[in-house]
């Protein structure tokens, strides 16, 4: 299990940037680009669950794709066990990448509609020589059992399953190649609430049994809070705050984090009258992100310097794990 005292980083993300060129305007020198992820540093410790939260388009899924090397970063790199997977030869990457798997949001499109569950699970295991052919049946039964599906279902096609069952198959597929880290990209967003809880519990249980490390990407706080040891809050391609789950919820620093918490419904009626930060306006375009602090256009605490200086993600106290990118609030707390 994740132990805060003796943790060591499994993945280190260094100065990660990912820009996507906009379509339709490829002539000329200054091609407009979407700054999906714009300079992000963090670590993922072995055995933990790191939640990444943010609005749609803030770059959280993009980070997920870079961690499993689905895309090459524009600059910066992702280190897995000290080795950069961002500029690795494709042969070496193919061997190593089975340890970094992904579970997708849309379980319908994450399974080939023309293949039975058996074939979906079998192909990667056979290709990588993870299992002998004569033990394949047994292993597939074991995997299905692990994710809570009856083994009699292995010859069905994806469309014969419900959304929750398909997500279980997606998890089984990710597990089949014996990964150490799984990026869960909004794995429960498309499911019914009751099914969401089942899948979250399954993920937690698998983490305990198999010593997995998770990156859990979501836009809702509830699920992230339930599964994560640490949470990173993202806004427009940047991490604005990162902390242990409990600490973040007890003491949110960044105005965006506060606004995010204030926006989610509270189960305690007496807290409903409290003062809240309500965000006005839309999230600015990531093609031309605001100068200075990206959040200053919507921030109630913004001062003149916020328009000019790009805030760094710094510990709120020396040596603290809790980091925030808001000098204004931090200065207020000092005083």
């Amino acid at each position, binding site marked *: 299990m994740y132990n805060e005292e003796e943790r060591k980083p499994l993945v280190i993300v260094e100065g990660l940037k990912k820009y996507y060129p906009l379509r339709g305007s490829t002539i000329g020198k200054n091609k407009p680009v979407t700054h999906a992820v714009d300079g992000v540093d963090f670590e993922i410790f072995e055995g933990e669950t790191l939640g990444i939260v943010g609005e749609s388009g803030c770059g959280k899924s993009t980070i997920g794709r870079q961690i499993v090397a689905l895309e090459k970063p524009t600059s910066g790199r992702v280190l897995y066990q000290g080795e950069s997977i961002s500029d690795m030869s494709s042969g070496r990457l193919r061997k190593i990448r089975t340890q970094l798997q992904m579970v997708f949001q849309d379980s319908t499109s*994450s399974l*080939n*509609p023309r293949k*039975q569950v058996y074939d979906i699970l079998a192909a990667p295991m056979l*290709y990588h020589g993870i299992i002998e052919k004569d033990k394949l049946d047994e292993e597939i039964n074991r995997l299905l059992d692990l994710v809570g599906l009856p083994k009699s279902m292995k010859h069905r096609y994806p469309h014969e399953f419900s959304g929750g069952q398909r997500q279980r198959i997606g998890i089984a597929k*990710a597990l089949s190649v014996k990964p150490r880290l799984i990026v869960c990209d909004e794995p429960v967003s498309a499911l019914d609430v009751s099914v969401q809880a089942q899948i979250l519990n399954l993920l937690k249980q698998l983490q305990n049994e198999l010593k997995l490390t998770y990156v859990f990407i979501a836009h809702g706080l509830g699920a992230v809070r339930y599964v994560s040891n640490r949470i990173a809050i993202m806004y427009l391609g940047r991490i604005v705050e990162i902390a242990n789950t409990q600490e973040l919820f007890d003491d949110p620093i960044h105005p965006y984090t506060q606004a995010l918490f204030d926006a989610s419904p509270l189960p305690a009626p007496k807290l409903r009258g409290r003062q809240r930060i309500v965000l006005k306006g839309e999230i600015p375009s990531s093609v031309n992100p605001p100068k200075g602090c990206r959040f200053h256009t919507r921030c109630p605490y913004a001062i003149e310097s916020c328009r000019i200086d790009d805030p760094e993600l710094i510990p709120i106290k020396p040596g603290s794990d809790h980091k925030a990118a808001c000098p204004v609030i931090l200065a207020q707390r000092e005083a």
Partner: protein
Amino acid sequence: MNHNSGASEYKNSTFRMVIKRFRKHKLAVASLYFLSFITILAILAPIIAPYDPNKVSTAFSRPPSLKHWLGTDQIGRDMFSRLLYATRISLFVGFAATVISTFIGVILGLIAGYFGGVVDIIIMRITDTIMSFPYILLVLVAAAIFGPGLWNIILILGFVDWPGAARLVRGNVLSLRETNFVKGNVVAGMPNRYILFSEILPNTIGPVLVYATSVFAISILDESALSFLGMGVRPPTASLGNILNGAESITILTSKFWLWVPAGVLIILLVVSINFVGDALRDAIDPSAKE
């Protein structure tokens, strides 16, 4: 092996679903029976044909009779036998040309769509170039250069018809490449050849099959047109097109209907029924359709 029996059972169930949906199109079912019937006749032509199709007799230009069911042509060859052999040739040309063009189109489309970038640009510009030529002119010029003949016409049609299939497959691959199951296989470290041929290709087979039926119909028409113009299958080998070619003169057209009506009607029926089958197939294999 317990799982094999289960596997075939489920494969059968999807297959049965396709058949069930196909059967709803009565015209298509009728067309399929008709096509099968004609195909069997064509294949069995050497057994069924009452005469040697190229044997000349002294009964010139006779109207249909009990002895010659569809009459005889100007040099006394039995028209029924010729028609059987002609169908055999025309179906073969159409089928072979379709197989070649679909194969080329699928391979190029897969490569262009999956790898993208420069490869895609090169392949698609070649495709556009071929498509921008007037089709019949291209075929005629090619036929003039390589000379008429059965295999030449098959190869010419095969190598001219592929751009449509290539574009279709490329478009499909572009959207399939973005699906999570393809990404999931990339993440699982599966090689490109597996992803292309085992994950992407099976998902493009449906549209390709439907497209191929229309290429089949068009190839039969093209062969007829070329042979009619004397650039296709060379006499004495009979094809549906060069039978029509023998009916160019106004006297034959007006007074000797048995020399051209059967071949003309057969071409129309073949093309129409192939298209009906193609349409029904499109509906039947659509995976989003229920029941």
